[in-house]
């Protein structure tokens, strides 16, 4: 009896916390499609604000997508090989490098942006191009790619597989492409989703690095919060959610799959072992 009561109390509490997180998101989505938020939904449903956002800010969405894709390409090309080297070498130096590589996540974006502006702000063409923002995003997302791939590689014995391939005469690059990369696939996928999500939503660095010609989606959002009516700001936020939520769902599905795979792994006997055991009994 008392347990039931305790369960309900805890459930109510958890639901309240959940409401605190979700209700504002729903309010924002609702405000984006109502004629006048002050009078509520009864003032009518409209796509007017979303169309207005599209006309005013569509360029920020294209730029955010461009930067996110470029950022993903760069972190894949430089991050995956780096993670492989770190996984192979191990030891104190590798751990030190790993620690240094995570620094841009630990240091507030504002400080990194300031450092970049003071150092490279003088190069006009660089400063005013979107590549300047891209550099900031690469620094910020690279640790996630490296750690994600590193985690997968460290959790399995890829050296043994590689040695097997080498003994059959595979060259270094053959092994890298046919043994290492396919085995690191889940880490690469998780890292990629993370990189794109973080890049699309990055504000702290981007606000300092942007110019009037290079506005990304979050920069445009800040702009609309400061100067537009609530409905337009809400509609813009709604567009942002529509862009980012599929990425978040994909990420959650991936981590759930991994968790389930882990649980299966915890079973000390694989299906093959069990089959063999049965065979022995017979």
């Amino acid at each position, binding site marked *: 009896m008392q347990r039931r009561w305790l*369960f309900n109390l*805890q*459930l109510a509490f*958890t639901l309240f*916390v*959940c409401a*605190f*997180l*979700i*209700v*504002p*998101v729903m*309010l*924002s989505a609702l405000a984006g499609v109502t004629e006048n938020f002050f009078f509520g939904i009864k003032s009518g449903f409209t796509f007017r604000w979303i169309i207005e956002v599209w006309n005013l800010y569509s360029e920020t969405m294209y730029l955010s997508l461009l930067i996110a894709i470029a950022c993903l390409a*760069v972190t894949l*090309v*430089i991050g995956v*090989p*780096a993670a492989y*080297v770190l996984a*192979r*070498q191990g030891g104190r130096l590798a751990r030190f490098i790993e620690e*240094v*590589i995570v*620094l841009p*996540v*630990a*240091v*507030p*974006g*504002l*400080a990194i942006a300031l*450092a*970049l502006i*003071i*150092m*490279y702000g003088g190069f006009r063409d660089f400063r005013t191009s979107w590549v300047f923002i891209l*550099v900031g995003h690469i*620094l910020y997302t*690279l640790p996630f790619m*490296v*750690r994600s791939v590193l985690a997968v590689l460290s959790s399995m014995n890829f050296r043994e597989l590689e040695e097997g391939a080498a003994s059959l005469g595979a060259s*270094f690059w053959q092994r890298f492409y046919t043994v290492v990369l396919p085995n690191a696939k889940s880490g690469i996928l998780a890292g990629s989703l993370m990189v794109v*999500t*973080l890049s699309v*939503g990055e*504000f*702290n660095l981007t606000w300092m690095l942007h110019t009037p010609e290079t506005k990304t989606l*979050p920069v445009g*959002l*800040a702009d609309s*919060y*400061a100067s537009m009516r609530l409905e337009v*700001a*809400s509609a813009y*936020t709604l567009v*942002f959610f529509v862009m980012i*939520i599929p990425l*978040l769902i994909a990420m*959650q599905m991936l981590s759930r799959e991994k968790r389930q795979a882990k649980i299966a792994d915890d079973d000390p006997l694989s299906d093959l072992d069990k089959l063999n055991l049965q065979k022995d009994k017979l």
Partner: protein
Amino acid sequence: MAHREYPTLFLLILPAAIVFAAFFVVPMVNLVAVGAAGEDGFAAYYSVFTTPRHFESMVATVLLSVGVTAVALVISTIAGLFLVRNRFWGRETLISFLTFPLAFPGVVIGFLVILLAGRQGLIGTISKAIFDDKLVFAYSMAGLFIGYLYFSIPRVILTVMAAAEKLDPALEEAARSLGASPCQVVKDVIIPALKPGLIASGAICFATSMGAFGTAFTLATNIDVLPMTIYTEFTLNANIAGAASLSIILGLITWIALFIARSLSGSTVASSG
């Protein structure tokens, strides 16, 4: 084959190393130098203590972050433990909802606080209907507190749940059969077992709150938290040395906090959002 391949391995890590050195290490070292190159020289690094405005902003930011961390830990432990120990319909959905906001940028969270507690906000509308008094607190420290809590809860819940899943139910059963009250079980069995996870996620939460910029930026530019002070020093007062030295100090604080978190848990859900 290992030693023969050192040159190839070196080549593989080289691009990342170059990008990192050119755009992070060198600019950051330069930032440290710039911080000391103002009229005050190295004394700029003491400005956090000697300039009243900087000191006040530092104290306010630390207090806010500690407060948010404490409240987020309590809330997330209760909800996280509940979600790990009970299986019920809709549990997975509830977990998804609780962890979604993890990737929302600070600016968006600031706007959500405005919708909740701003001039046209939900809380104001409800309080007006009931008490005939419009409650508006989005544009102050209280609004910032709510915003920071918003982005802290998902991070902490994830860590608490991961730690709670490893908890051995037999220990609790044993304590109970030996006559421990539910309160004693929580105090003597559950909390000690969750402690490393709680410290780690608390440190992450503290670091994130210290460095958060977007939320304060959306809510009000006159709330003096450290990132806002750095921003005003740089853009309005053109005090580049001051902004640089404050950023370095802020970076050191968040890095130390996250270092503690990493050495305790080994995994991070951290970012300076």
